[in-house]
């Protein structure tokens, strides 16, 4: 019995003659629906979930508390000071936006690439994307100081007769990040409508029936609905794919159009995109490894899914390493003394530890994923993913803070140190992120039920659909 169970648990073997199943065990439409809906239908509050929620909510309170303190007191409460005028808030912004890239990548790009293993993890990754983008959007807002005039960024006719400066990459950012948020949210919600209808139809209480009924918009799964729905889903995927590339490219131009050595280099757009995907997938692993175990979804979010996610992490880690290496080589090749200095300063300057820790987390540790054992052992991949989260945060720190702290003018050099508020805000943003994610896990369908049904082994429906 145990051996049989073991054989069923492992669908990671690669057999060129047969595509591996994407679900474990004999699954039917009904069992898939059951195992996903059960998480939201459990009457008793799961204890560990509740404890996690309380901790996250407390951190969220800290987050909004520090934001209130910052607004009422002024941005002097942050450590930002000449010459490091962009520090923790922008580091956090880029970090969270990066995290937010995995969801759309899984939903859109893997959809276009017909990677059917995406179906089990795309919903939670999209949710993660939206929550990460919410965290990201907060930081540049509060960092600018007078948050109450944030509407000045919108091009509206005003009594000053002024318009935003569209030649600034910061304005591109406003458009890119907001577009990304709206498109991700629409994509997420659209994808969820049929599953919300499932929750509505299974509801036993009137309240649940009303709420999910309202959210499902009266979906009845008619062929006419499915036809236009699938078309829209494909179109949104096709739109979201270049969008996801553009967003982090635009974020990279915040730095790369400047003339500051360490910021201005032409590989930044694709390098930032790869880094974003890297960090996003690390966050997917960080969230999904515990979630699939805790909510009993191991047969849907299988080791094969995690194996694939880890392979993508390995690939993007290599791209990031490539960018580091090419930047280093070109810094030497350019013969430009400031370019050379910036890289020496990163590696051997006062912030050298951040650089080496970054290299260890982003380049060296993920190389363990060459070993299949590391790709398929949950606790190992969880630890590596945590390291990558740290490493990618440090990468933005190295780019932003370390470059700024020593620029062209040695007389202008200074060290940057975060204040307690800086640190609390970073922790608080994690609180907000996890709070939203925990609520999502408990009250919304965590796995795209209809999409998983779509890829269930089903002989008589399309033959081509049972592949990995």
């Amino acid at each position, binding site marked *: 019995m145990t051996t049989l169970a073991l054989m069923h648990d492992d669908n990671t073997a690669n057999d060129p003659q047969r595509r591996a199943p994407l679900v474990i065990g004999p699954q*039917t*439409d*009904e069992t898939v*629906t059951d195992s996903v809906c059960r998480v939201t239908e459990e009457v008793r509050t799961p204890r560990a979930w509740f404890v996690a929620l309380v901790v996250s909510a407390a951190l969220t309170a800290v987050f909004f508390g520090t934001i209130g303190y910052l607004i009422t007191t002024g941005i002097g409460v942050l450590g930002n000071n000449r010459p490091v005028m962009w520090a923790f808030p922008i580091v956090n912004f880029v970090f969270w936006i990066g995290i937010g890239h995995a969801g759309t990548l899984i939903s859109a790009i893997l959809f276009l690439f017909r990677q059917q293993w995406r179906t089990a993890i795309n919903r939670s990754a999209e949710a993660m994307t939206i929550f990460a983008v919410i965290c990201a959007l907060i930081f540049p807002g509060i960092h600018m100081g007078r948050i*109450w*005039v944030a509407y000045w960024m919108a*091009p509206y006719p005003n009594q000053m*007769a*002024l*318009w935003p*400066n*569209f*030649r600034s*990459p910061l*304005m*591109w950012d406003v*458009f*890119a990040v907001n*577009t990304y948020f*709206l*498109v991700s949210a*629409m*994509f997420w919600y*659209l994808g969820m*409508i*049929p599953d919300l*209808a*499932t929750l*509505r*139809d*299974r509801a036993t209480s009137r309240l649940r029936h009303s709420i999910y009924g309202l959210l499902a*918009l*009266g*979906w*009845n*799964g*008619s*062929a*006419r*609905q*499915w*036809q*236009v*729905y*699938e*078309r*829209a889903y494909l*179109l*949104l995927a096709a*739109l979201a794919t*270049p*969008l996801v590339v*553009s967003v982090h490219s*635009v974020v990279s131009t915040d730095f790369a159009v400047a003339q500051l050595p360490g910021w201005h280099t032409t590989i930044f757009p694709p390098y930032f995109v790869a880094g974003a995907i890297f960090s996003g997938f690390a966050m997917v692993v960080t969230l999904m490894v515990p979630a699939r175990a805790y909510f009993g979804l191991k047969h849907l979010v299988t080791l094969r899914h995690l194996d694939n996610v880890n392979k993508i992490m390995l690939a993007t880690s290599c791209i990031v390493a490539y960018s580091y290496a090419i930047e280093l080589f070109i810094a030497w090749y350019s013969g430009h003394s400031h370019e050379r200095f910036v890289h020496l300063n990163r590696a051997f300057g006062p912030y050298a530890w951040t650089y080496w820790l970054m290299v260890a987390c982003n380049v060296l540790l993920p190389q363990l994923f060459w070993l299949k054992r590391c790709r398929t052992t949950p606790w190992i991949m969880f630890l590596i993913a945590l390291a990558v989260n740290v490493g990618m945060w440090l990468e933005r720190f190295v780019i932003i803070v370390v470059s700024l702290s020593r620029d062209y003018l040695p007389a202008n050099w200074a060290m940057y140190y975060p204040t307690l508020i800086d640190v609390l805000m970073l922790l608080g943003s994690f609180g907000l992120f996890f709070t939203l994610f925990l609520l999502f896990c408990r009250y919304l369908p965590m796995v795209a039920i*209809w999409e998983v*049904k*779509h890829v269930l082994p*089903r002989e008589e*429906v*399309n033959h081509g659909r049972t592949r990995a």
Partner: protein
Amino acid sequence: MDAHAHEHPNSSPPVAGLLAQFASPEALRAAAAAVRAAGWTRWDVHSPFPIHGIDRAMGLRPSPLPWLVLGAAVVGVVLALAMQLWMNGIDYPLIISGKPLLSLPTSVPIMFELGVLLAAIAAFVGAIALGGLPLYGHPVFFSSRFSRASTDGFFIFLAADDQRFEPISAQALLRSAGAVSVETLQVDEASGRVPGGLYWILATAVVLALLPPVLVTWYRTGPKSNPRIHLIQDMDFQEKYRPQSASPLFADGRATRPTVPETIPQGRLQADEHLYTGKVAEQWVTTFPMQPTAAMMERGRERYGIFCTTCHGLVGEGGVSGITSARAVKRREPNWVLPLSLHTQSVREQPVGQLFHTITHGVRTMPALGAQIPAEDRWAIVLYVRALQRSQNATLDDVPEPIRSQLRPVSP
């Protein structure tokens, strides 16, 4: 279940349609083809996931959504380009960081983003609207069996308002197409009607949402005995002493400290009354404190160009000749007062000391510029203003003899 339907084929409530369940997607597809072949138009297929080929089996026309999305994308791109070029290049042309006014490369990111945004909104709204959503009620929802349609049930619904609808033959059609079960659905009067409570909830929510802005507007307009609500702080209230405020720290209770007796701050010694005030013994001076030179005149011309032309114009005729004034008039700013001409009789008759004083301290709506312009430069401006005044009221005698021949007569 279906036997029940047979018993009362014509009794009220009226029949909404027939709902048939099928065992598998494959059976559903075959049945859909059969129903289509029978010529039905008011019917649909329901399944927990999209079944490929069902739209072909049903004879559904391709959805127009892609064209909608393409149109929205084009609108977004064109809109973004027009917006950026017009706002930054035409309506308020301002060179920033050496970029051209009509700057195409920098317009590309927002063109792309706005195109994607509008296209995605079109896809989203299109999917919902063309899918007939939101849909409050539908006869199928009244079948207890239909709750399986979002789990593992495959259904065909034949609506009673189809021209071909006839309960017995329709039943037979579905049976022969392989239905596992067929159910007759009645029209429920309550279906499709939104409960009244929902309207009340919505109305209350709208009223509640409107309250704060209404209150704020009310408090911010019209005279009130209490201070207005100060929504936007803008660093208006800071932990600092304002001028003339009290402080318990000092014996005299004043926060503003007087200068120490018998001292003058460094660089503030302004002993030369003529140079710094334009007065001697409380009388406007009529001479310059320094010897006017060509260099001083040139300096005055340059400083005048920097500090005075925006309001008084290049020649000093005031009105709308300055760019600030012209813009204010063009925009019909209600509080704008036209700057005076420097060539009126009264200004021309002012002694130079008074002109100097006006530049230093301002007059009426003209701001004081003493803090921005050093005294020597203010005198230089006065000199240039005098020259301007003379130029506008010149006679033939003012023109040197040798170049008089170059003058052209002006037609009146």
